[in-house]
C-alpha cells in the first residue's frame, strides 16, 4: 500500500510537470516519513553512488556530442550515405535511418542524434516531397539508434548501476541496433512504395556514383575517424570507455574548429556550458533516482513485484514477456534515462533470478526503453522530432504505429527470446 501511494505520488507529480528529480524526491520523501526512516543517510547515499569515474563518461560524451553538433560534423556523414541510397523511392528516408545509425557510433544520446541529423535531413526530405509526418516519425525512431549503437549513455548508466562491464553492454546493444536499422528502413520503403509525390533523383552511371562517393567520403573522413577512435580505442585496449570519451572531446574540437570550421572559439565555451547544463540536469535526476531506488530496496519492491509475476506464471518466457510489458508501460510514462535509472535496480535482481544474463538484459532494456522514447504520452523523441520538422504529433502517429508494430516489436522479441543476438558479439569479442 505504501509503495502504491509512493508510485501514485510519483506519477501525479510527473504529470503536473514537476521536474523529474523533484518528482522522484517527493515520492522518496513520502516513503521516508511514512516508513519511519531517518533521512540523514539519503544524501550521502546519493553522493557515494555518484562518486564514480564510470559515470563521468556521460558528460564527456555529451560534450563531444555538443561539439560535433555545432561543428557540422553530421553534414558530412549525410553526404556520404546520400550518394548511395538517395536514388530509390523512399531512399532519402533510408539515408535518414542509416545516418542516424552512423552518427550513433559517435554520439551517446538519442536526442543529440535526432537534433543533429534532423536539422540536416528535414529540409532535404521536405524538398523531396516526403509527407512531413512520416519524415518526422521516421526520424524520431531512428534517433534511438544513437543509444543502441555504441557508445551509449543508456548502456553506461546500466553498467554503472548493475555493476557490469561497460564494454560488454555496448556490444550487447549493437546487433539489436543493426536489426532495428534494417527494419526501420524496410518499413519506410514499404509505406512509401506507391507514393508518387516523392522526387527520386535520376540514376547516374556507376562510375559517376563511385567518384562522388569517394570524394564525399574523403571530406567526411575526419568525422568517420571518430567512431574508429572511440570504439577502436576501447576495444583495441588503449583506453577505458571514460578515457575514450575524453579523447573524443579533444579530437572533436580541432575537427569542428579547423577542418569543418563550424565552431568558433566563442561558441566552444558556450557549447561547454550548454553540455554542462544538460549534464547537471541529468545528474540531478540520477541523484534523486538513486535515493528513491534505495528506498524501494528497503521496502522490498523487487521481491513484491517478483511475487506478483510468479503468481501469474512460473514460466521464464512468460515472466520475461510480463517484464517487457512492464517496461513498455514505464517507457510510456517516462524517458529512457529515468527508465533505466528506476528500472535497473528493480529488474536486474529479478531477471538474474530467472537465469537471464545481465548483459543480455542490457540489450533488452536498451531496445525497450528506446521504444519508450516514441510512445506517448511521454515521448521525448517524438516531440523533439516533431518540433524540428514542424509536424504535429497526430500526423506522425500513422507511421509511428507502423514502425512500432513492424520494426520495434519484432526487434524487441528477437532480442528478448534469442539471447545470441545480443550475447553473440560479446562472447566473440570478449570471450567468457
Amino acid at each position, binding site marked *: 500500500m505504501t509503495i502504491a501511494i509512493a508510485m501514485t505520488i510519483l506519477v501525479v507529480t510527473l504529470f503536473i510537470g514537476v521536474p523529474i528529480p523533484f518528482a522522484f524526491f517527493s515520492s522518496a520523501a513520502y516513503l521516508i516519513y511514512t516508513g519511519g*526512516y*531517518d533521512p*540523514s*543517510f539519503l544524501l*550521502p*547515499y546519493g553522493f*557515494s*553512488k555518484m562518486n564514480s*569515474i*564510470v559515470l563521468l563518461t556521460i558528460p564527456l560524451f555529451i560534450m563531444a556530442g555538443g561539439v560535433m553538433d555545432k561543428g557540422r560534423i553530421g553534414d558530412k556523414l549525410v553526404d556520404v550515405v546520400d550518394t548511395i541510397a538517395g536514388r530509390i523511392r523512399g531512399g532519402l528516408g533510408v539515408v535518414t535511418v542509416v545516418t542516424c545509425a552512423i552518427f550513433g557510433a559517435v554520439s551517446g544520446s538519442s536526442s543529440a542524434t535526432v537534433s543533429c541529423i534532423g536539422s540536416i535531413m528535414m529540409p532535404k526530405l521536405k524538398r523531396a516531397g516526403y509527407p512531413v509526418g512520416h519524415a518526422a516519425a521516421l526520424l524520431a525512431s531512428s534517433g534511438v539508434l544513437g543509444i543502441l549503437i555504441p557508445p551509449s549513455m543508456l548502456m553506461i548508466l546500466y*553498467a554503472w548501476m548493475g*555493476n*557490469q*562491464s*561497460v*564494454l*560488454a553492454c555496448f556490444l550487447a546493444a549493437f546487433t539489436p541496433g543493426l536489426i532495428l536499422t534494417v527494419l526501420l528502413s524496410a518499413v519506410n520503403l514499404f509505406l512509401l512504395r506507391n507514393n508518387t509525390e516523392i522526387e527520386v533523383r535520376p540514376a547516374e552511371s556507376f562510375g559517376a556514383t563511385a567518384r562522388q562517393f569517394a570524394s564525399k567520403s574523403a571530406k567526411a573522413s575526419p568525422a568517420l575517424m571518430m567512431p574508429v577512435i572511440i570504439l577502436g580505442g*576501447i*576495444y*583495441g*585496449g*588503449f*583506453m*577505458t*570507455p571514460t578515457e575514450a570519451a575524453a579523447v573524443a572531446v579533444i579530437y572533436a574540437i580541432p575537427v569542428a574548429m579547423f577542418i569543418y570550421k563550424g565552431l568558433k572559439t566563442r561558441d566552444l565555451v558556450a557549447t561547454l556550458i550548454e553540455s554542462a547544463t544538460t549534464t547537471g540536469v541529468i545528474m540531478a535526476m540520477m541523484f534523486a533516482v538513486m535515493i528513491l531506488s*534505495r528506498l524501494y*530496496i*528497503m521496502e522490498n519492491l523487487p521481491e513484491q513485484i517478483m511475487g506478483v509475476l510468479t503468481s501469474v506464471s512460473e514460466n521464464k518466457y512468460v515472466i520475461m514477456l510480463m517484464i517487457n510489458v512492464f517496461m513498455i508501460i514505464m517507457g510510456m510514462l517516462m524517458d529512457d534515462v529515468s527508465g533505466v535509472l528506476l528500472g535497473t535496480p528493480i529488474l536486474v535482481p529479478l531477471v538474474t533470478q530467472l537465469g537471464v544474463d545481465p548483459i543480455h538484459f542490457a540489450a533488452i532494456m536498451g531496445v525497450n526503453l528506446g521504444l519508450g522514447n516514441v510512445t506517448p504520452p511521454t515521448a521525448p523523441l517524438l516531440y523533439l522530432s516533431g518540433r524540428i520538422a514542424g509536424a504535429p504529433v497526430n500526423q506522425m502517429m500513422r507511421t509511428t504505429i507502423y514502425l512500432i508494430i513492424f520494426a520495434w516489436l519484432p526487434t524487441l522479441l528477437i532480442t528478448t527470446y534469442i539471447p545470441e543476438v545480443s550475447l553473440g558479439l560479446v562472447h566473440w569479442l*570478449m*570471450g*567468457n
Partner: protein
Amino acid sequence: ACNDDAGKAETKSVEFKFATQHPVEHMAHKAAERIKARVEKETQGRVTIKIYPANQLGDASQIYEEVIRGSIDIAHITVPDQYDSRLGIGFIPYIARDYDQIREVFAKGSFIDTEMAKMHDALGVKFFSYFGEGFIGVGAVEPVENMKQPGVEKGIMIRVPGLDVFKFGGEELGFRTTSIPYSDTYSALQTGVVKGWIGGPPNLNYLGFRDVIKHYYQYNVNFESTQYVMNKAKFEALSPEDRKIVETAFVEEAQQSFLMAESEDQMYRKKLEEAGIEVTVFTTQELEEMANYVREHAWQRLEKNLTPELVNGLRGSYK
C-alpha cells in the same frame, strides 16, 4: 495486541539491519546467515537480523558512514579510511607472510585487534573482529620476470586498486602500477591496457578472471580482510546478556573465517590450475624475504597516513 501476553511485561524485540558487500554466493553470506540464525535462536527472538547483501544499501564507504550514523546497524565490509586514515592498516603489504602468521596478527586481543577497536570506538562504532578472505596475489597475462627477487623490475605493468597500501606493495615488489577501477579491470586485461592485476585472492582470480589470465603468482602481498562492525549506541542499548550473545556470534564466525579462507585459497588455486593457468606458490623462506624487503621499504612510505606509532607498534608485535 489483544493476545495472552498482554498482561506480561513485554520484552521488546529489536531488528537490526545488517549490510554486507558480499554477493549471496560468497562464503561470507553463508557466515552472515549462520550468525543471523544463531543470534535469533539464542536471544529467543529478542534480537532479529535482516541481511542486505551485495552492496544493496550502498558501497562499503557509504555503509560505514551509516553505521556511524546508526541508519545501518551492523556491517560486514572493507572498512574505508575516510574518517581515520589509520583504519586501512589491515591492508598494509605483507602484514603477514602466510596463514600461520595471519592468525596471530588478527587474533582477538592482538595488537591490531586492540588498536582497531579503539579507532572505531572514537567514531561511535563497535568493532567485533576482522574476517579473513584470502591472500592476494598477482594474476597476469604474461609471465613475470625476476619473480622471486623483490625490488627488481618485473617487466609488466599491473592494475592496482587506487590505494597506497596496494600501490606501494606492488611497486616495492618491482611492478609498474596503474590504478584502474575494479569494474574496468577485466576489459583492461583483456585488451592489454595492463598485463596483470593485484587486488584479489585465488577465488576472485578464478571466478572473475580465469578466461583472461594465464599465470597466477601467490605473492601474499596483501591480505584480503573485511570487518564486522556495529553502531555502538545500538550495541550498548542491548541487555548485557544479549550483547554477549551478539558479540560472541560475530567474533567466533570471524575467527573461523581464517581457516575457511586458507582452504578456499587452496581449492581455488587447484581450480585455476585445472583451468590451464600456471600457478606459482613460493616457499616460506622466499615469502619471508619478500615480506622483509617490502616491509622495510613500503612501510615507511605508508607511515604518513598510518602514523609512525601504529606502524612501529605493528612492527614490534611480530614474534
